C-alpha cells in the first residue's frame, strides 16, 4: 500500500471563484454502492493544463438533508488511471497522463442518495468543472473492472488493493466477478501445492510453487468453508528459486523468477473440520476458487516440522524476516498445538532397588534415543559411596524405548546395587520437559541435572562439588569441567558469540572445546556467563523460582543458557570447577552446525528465540 498512498489525494475543498477552461471535460462512467457502505465513482477528467486536480461531491440543494450529508463526506481515496481512449478522443500527444479516476467515498449510514441532487466537482487552481452523476446502484464485479480495459495492470491492482483496504475480505464476496475455470487460469498462471498443513485454531502452512511470470494475479487468499479469509498471500509469501519449475514451463517467466512459495498463514478461526479453498483473482477481475486438500497436523509433528523447514534458506538475506513471519510462528503453532492436544501426561514412576530415605540430592538424567547409558552410569555409580545418599532419577523421554527399557532396568537393578527410579510421561517431552518432570519428582532440595552420556572420572564427585559450592557467592548453577573420551576439554563454562554467518544471532560457545587441558589451564573456580546443562548443580528452590528449564525451545538446545540467564537476571552467578572432571561423550550428531539439515535449522530457530529474549543481557555479560 505504500506506493498507492502517494498517488491518493485528499480532497481539500476550498472556495472556487471564477470558472475558467483549464478543465474542459469531465465524464462519469460508473456510480456504484459497494457493500452498502461505500460509494465508488469512476470516470475520466481531461485537464491538460493541470498536473493534478481535486475531486469532491457538491450538493445542488443545500437542504442540510441526506444529499448534503453525502456531499459533506470527503473523498476517501482518489485513484488516477490510464485512459488511452481519452487521449485518442482529444488527440492528446503529450507525456503519459492519467485521465481516469476512481473515487471512493464513505456512504453515510441510512442515507438515501439522489444522484440528481449531487454533482461531481473537479477543481484545480481557479478552475472548476461540475459533472452530472448517474444513479447509484449496487456495484457488481463485472462493472467494477469492466470499463477499465485501458488501465494498466498496476492500476487495476491498486483498485483492488484499495477495495480490499476498505472492505477487507468482503471484497471477495462482491457479486458479479466473472468466474474463471481452473483450466482457463492455468493458461496464464500455474501452480502446485506440495504441502498444505493445517493447524486448527492457528493457521495453515502452504508450500509449493506458483508460476505467474506475467503477473496476472491481483490476489490470492485462503478461505475456510465458514467464510474466514486469510491475509493476502502474494506479497507476504516466501519465494525462492525453483529451476525445475522454470524448466518444465520454458519461456513463461524471466530467468530469475522465483516460483517456489511457502507461507505460514495465520487463521486463528480455522476449525478442524473446515474445508479450505484457495481464491485467486486476476487483474482482469476474474475469480478462480479451488478446493485445497489440507493435512491436519496433530501430536506427531516431526514430518510437519521437516516440511516447514525444508526450503527455509538460512543463507538468504531475509532469513530473519522469514523466521519471524513464517518459520517461527509455524513451528510454534505445531508445538503449542501438540502440547494442548496431549494435555497433562500420565506419569508412571517405578522404583528400582530400595528407595533412598531423605536423600542429600536428586540426580536427574533424561534418556532419549538409547538407554544403554543407564548401564554404563550405574556400573560406575556402584562403587561410589555418595549414591547411598542420592536419589537417582532416570526420566525416560522416548516412548519407542519403553518396552525394552523397563525389563532392562529390572535386570540392571537386580545386578547393580544402585537404587534408581524411572519416571515416564508416556511421551517425548523434550530435554527441558524431561528435566522439569524429573525435578517434580525429586524429593531432596538439591538437584543435579545430568546427561546420560556423562561418566565420572572418579567416585565422590557429588559430595565434593557440593562442598566446594558452599563458599561461593550468590551461587546460581555450579558445573564441573567436562572432557571428551580423549581427555580434551568439552566444557569449561559457556560463553556467547555473535554469528557473522547467521545474521548476528547469539550462539552458545564452549571456549576451549577440543583443546588438551594444558592449553587452557583451567582455574579451580571460575565464573562463567552460563554453564552447560549436561551437568548442573542447582538448588531445587532456585530452579523452581525461575520455572525450571524453558520448554519452548525445540529438540533440546539453549535451555541451559536460558536458565542461566534467567538466574543471572535475578542476580545469581554461575561457576565452573576446573578441578572436578567428568567425561562427556557428546554425540557427534549433536554438532548441528556442521550441516544444514532440518535439525540444524531448528537449532537456528532456537538461537533466534534465545537472541530475541536475551540479546540485551548477553551483550552486557560478554562486553
Amino acid at each position, binding site marked *: 500500500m505504500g506506493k498507492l498512498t502517494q498517488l491518493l489525494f485528499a480532497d481539500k475543498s476550498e472556495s472556487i471563484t471564477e470558472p475558467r477552461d483549464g478543465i474542459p471535460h469531465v465524464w462519469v462512467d460508473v456510480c456504484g454502492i459497494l457493500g452498502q457502505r461505500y460509494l465508488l465513482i469512476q470516470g475520466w477528467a481531461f485537464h491538460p493544463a493541470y498536473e493534478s486536480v481535486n475531486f469532491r461531491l457538491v450538493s445542488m440543494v443545500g437542504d442540510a438533508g441526506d444529499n448534503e450529508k453525502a456531499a459533506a463526506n470527503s473523498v476517501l481515496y482518489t485513484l488516477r488511471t490510464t485512459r488511452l481512449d481519452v487521449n485518442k478522443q482529444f488527440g492528446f500527444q503529450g507525456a503519459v497522463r492519467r485521465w481516469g479516476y476512481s473515487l471512493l467515498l464513505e456512504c453515510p449510514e441510512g442515507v438515501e442518495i439522489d444522484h440528481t441532487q449531487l454533482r461531481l466537482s473537479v477543481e484545480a487552481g481557479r478552475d472548476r468543472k461540475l459533472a452530472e452523476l448517474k444513479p447509484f446502484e449496487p456495484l457488481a464485479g463485472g462493472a467494477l473492472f469492466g470499463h477499465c480495459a485501458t488501465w494498466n495492470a498496476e492500476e487495476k491492482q491498486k483498485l483492488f488493493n484499495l477495495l480490499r483496504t476498505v472492505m477487507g475480505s468482503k471484497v471477495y464476496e462482491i457479486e458479479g466477478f466473472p468466474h474463471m475455470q481452473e483450466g482457463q487460469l492455468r493458461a496464464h498462471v500455474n501452480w502446485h501445492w506440495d504441502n498444505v498443513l493445517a493447524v486448527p485454531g492457528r493457521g495453515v502452512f502452504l508450500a509449493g510453487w506458483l508460476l505467474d511470470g506475467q503477473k496476472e494475479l491481483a490476489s490470492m487468499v485462503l478461505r475456510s468453508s465458514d467464510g474466514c479469509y486469510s491475509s493476502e498471500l502474494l506479497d507476504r509469501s516466501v519465494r525462492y528459486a525453483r529451476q525445475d519449475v522454470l524448466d518444465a514451463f520454458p519461456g513463461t517467466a524471466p530467468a530469475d523468477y522465483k516460483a517456489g512459495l511457502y507461507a505460514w498463514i495465520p487463521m486463528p478461526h480455522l476449525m478442524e473440520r473446515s474445508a479450505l479453498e484457495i481464491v485467486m483473482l486476476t487483474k482482469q477481475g476474474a475469480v478462480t476458487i479451488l478446493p485445497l486438500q489440507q493435512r491436519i497436523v496433530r501430536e506427531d509433528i516431526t514430518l510437519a516440522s521437516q516440511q516447514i523447514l525444508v526450503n527455509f534458506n538460512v543463507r538468504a538475506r531475509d532469513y530473519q524476516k522469514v523466521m519471524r513471519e513464517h518459520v517461527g510462528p509455524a513451528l510454534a503453532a505445531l508445538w503449542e498445538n501438540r502440547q494442548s492436544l496431549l494435555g497433562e501426561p500420565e506419569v508412571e514412576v517405578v522404583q528400582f532397588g530400595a528407595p533412598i530415605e531423605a536423600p542429600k540430592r536428586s540426580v536427574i538424567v533424561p534418556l532419549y534415543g538409547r538407554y544403554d547409558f543407564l548401564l554404563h552410569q550405574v556400573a560406575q555409580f556402584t562403587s561410589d559411596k555418595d549414591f547411598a545418599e542420592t536419589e537417582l532419577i532416570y526420566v525416560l523421554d522416548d516412548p519407542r524405548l519403553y518396552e525394552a527399557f523397563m525389563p532392562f532396568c529390572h535386570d540392571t537393578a537386580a*545386578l547393580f546395587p544402585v537404587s534408581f527410579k524411572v519416571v515416564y510421561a508416556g511421551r517425548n517431552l523434550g530435554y527441558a520437559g524431561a528435566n522439569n518432570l524429573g525435578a517434580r519428582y525429586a524429593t531432596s532440595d538439591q538437584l543435579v541435572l545430568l546427561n546420560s552420556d556423562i561418566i565420572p572420572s572418579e567416585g565422590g564427585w557429588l559430595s565434593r562439588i557440593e562442598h566446594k559450592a558452599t563458599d561461593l557467592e550468590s551461587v546460581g548453577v555450579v558445573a564441573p569441567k567436562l572432557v571428551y573420551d580423549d581427555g580434551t576439554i568439552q566444557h569449561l563454562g559457556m560463553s556467547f558469540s555473535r554469528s557473522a554467518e547467521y545474521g548476528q544471532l547469539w550462539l552458545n560457545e564452549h571456549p576451549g572445546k577440543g583443546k588438551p587441558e594444558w592449553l587452557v589451564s583451567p582455574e579451580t573456580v571460575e565464573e562463567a556467563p552460563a554453564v552447560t546443562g549436561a551437568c548442573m548443580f542447582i538448588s531445587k528452590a532456585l530452579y523452581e523460582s525461575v520455572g525450571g528449564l524453558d520448554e519452548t525451545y525445540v529438540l533440546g538446545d539453549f535451555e541451559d543458557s536460558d536458565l542461566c540467564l534467567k538466574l543471572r537476571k535475578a542476580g545469581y552467578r554461575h561457576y565452573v570447577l576446573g578441578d572436578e572432571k567428568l567425561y562427556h561423550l557428546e554425540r557427534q550428531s549433536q554438532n548441528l552446525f556442521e550441516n544444514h539439515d532440518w535439525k540444524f535449522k531448528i537449532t537456528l530457530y532456537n538461537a533466534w528465540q534465545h537472541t530475541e529474549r536475551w540479546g540485551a543481557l548477553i551483550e552486557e555479560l560478554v562486553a
Partner: protein
Amino acid sequence: MTDHKILIVSHGHPDHSKGGAEVAAYNLFKEYERQGLDTVFLARTDQPSHGGSAFSTINSEREILFHTHMSDFFLFQSGNKKHVWQDFRGLLERYQPTVVHFHHYIHMGLELIREVKNTLPNARIVLTLHEYLAICANNGQMVKPGKQMKLCYKSAPTDCARCFPERSAADFFLREKYIKSIFDLVDVFVSPSHFLIDRYKAWGIPETKMVMIENGQPKVEAPLPRPLAEGEERGRFAFFGQINPFKGVDVLLEAFKLLPEEIKKKVHLDIHGANLEGQTEDFQGKIRGLLDELGDLVTLHGPYESNEIGRLMEQTDWVVIPSVWWENSPMVIQEAFNHKRPLIASDIGGMEEKIAHLENGVHFRSRSANALAYQVKNAVLEEDWSALVKSINRPLSISECAGAHLKLYS
C-alpha cells in the same frame, strides 16, 4: 588341606569343546577333586537343557552345565540376565563358595562376576585371562580386522573406532570403563603368560593383581625320539590345533611350497587340525588349493582326541606353531614340551616367551613363509635336534599348577 569351597566357572566343558581354556579349567577341577577339595565345575553350554532349565549336570553332580548365552559380545552382556540374578545367584547362595574362579566370562556375561560380589561379598574372585578380550573387540586377538590382519600393539578408543567404523570412540571408551568397573571386583588375575600380563598392565590392570601360572600338564612318559631309518633326517613336522586365519596354517603350507626340491624329499608335514569346514569359503579355498599343490608332502588328518596326543607326538620330530596373532600360552607348546618335542614358532607374543630360540626350539619371523621355509630347511639339515630336546624342561604339572592356584585362594 584347605576348607575352601571352590567354584570353577568355565565357558565350556571339555566333553563338548576342547579349547585350551576349557581343558585347563577342567584339569584344575579334577585335580582339586583328586586332592579331596570341595569343588564344583560350572561349564557353560549352548546345548538345550531339559525343560528349559538353566542348569543340568554331566558326568557327576559336581559338574554342572549352565545353559546360557550372551547377547552382546561388545560389552559381554548376558543374553538372559535372569540366569544370572536368579539361577546363578541361587547356586551361589546354596553352595556358598569361598572362591569363585572364572576361567572365562565369554558366552556367559561379565555380570556373573558382578553377581558374585552382590551375593557373596567376601568370596575371593579369581579370573584367568586367556585372550585379550577385554582389550580388543576383535575377538580379543589384538589383530586388526581386515585381510592383512595387522598386529595391534595397544588399544585406545579412537584407534579401536578406526577398526570398527560402525562404532564411535565413545563406544570404546564406555566399553573400557564398563569392563574395568567389573574387573575392579576381581581379587586376582591369573595369566598363563607374562606377555598377556604386560598387555593387561598397559591397559590399566595393576600389576600387583596379576599372577603368571602356566597351564598344568598331565604326567606322561615322554616318547622316545622317532626311530630313523638308515640315512633319514629328522624331517617329520606337525601342526596341532584349529585351522583358522589366526593360526597361520596358510603360512606353513606356503613355506613348504618354497622348500628346495631336495629338501622336499626329506620332509613331511602332518596337520592335525580341526574346524577347517567352519571357516570362510575364501579361506577354505586358499588352504585346499595349497594342499592340492603340495600333494603327498602334506597330510591333513583332521581333529584328534586328547588321549591320542602321545601317539601323534611319537611320530613327530618338530612341532610347528606358525600363528599370526600373539597367542597367550597355547596348549600345543606345553604338550610338545611334555612329549619332548622341539618347536618352530612365530617370534611374537606368548610363543616368543615360551620357546627359547636355539635352546629348546627355533623362532622364525612371524607371517613370513620364507623365514619359516628357511628354518624348516635348517631343522632338517643343520639343527642339533638332540641338543634342543635335551634343553626342554618338564612343564608344570597339573598338581603343581593346582598348588600355585591354591596359594592365590587365601
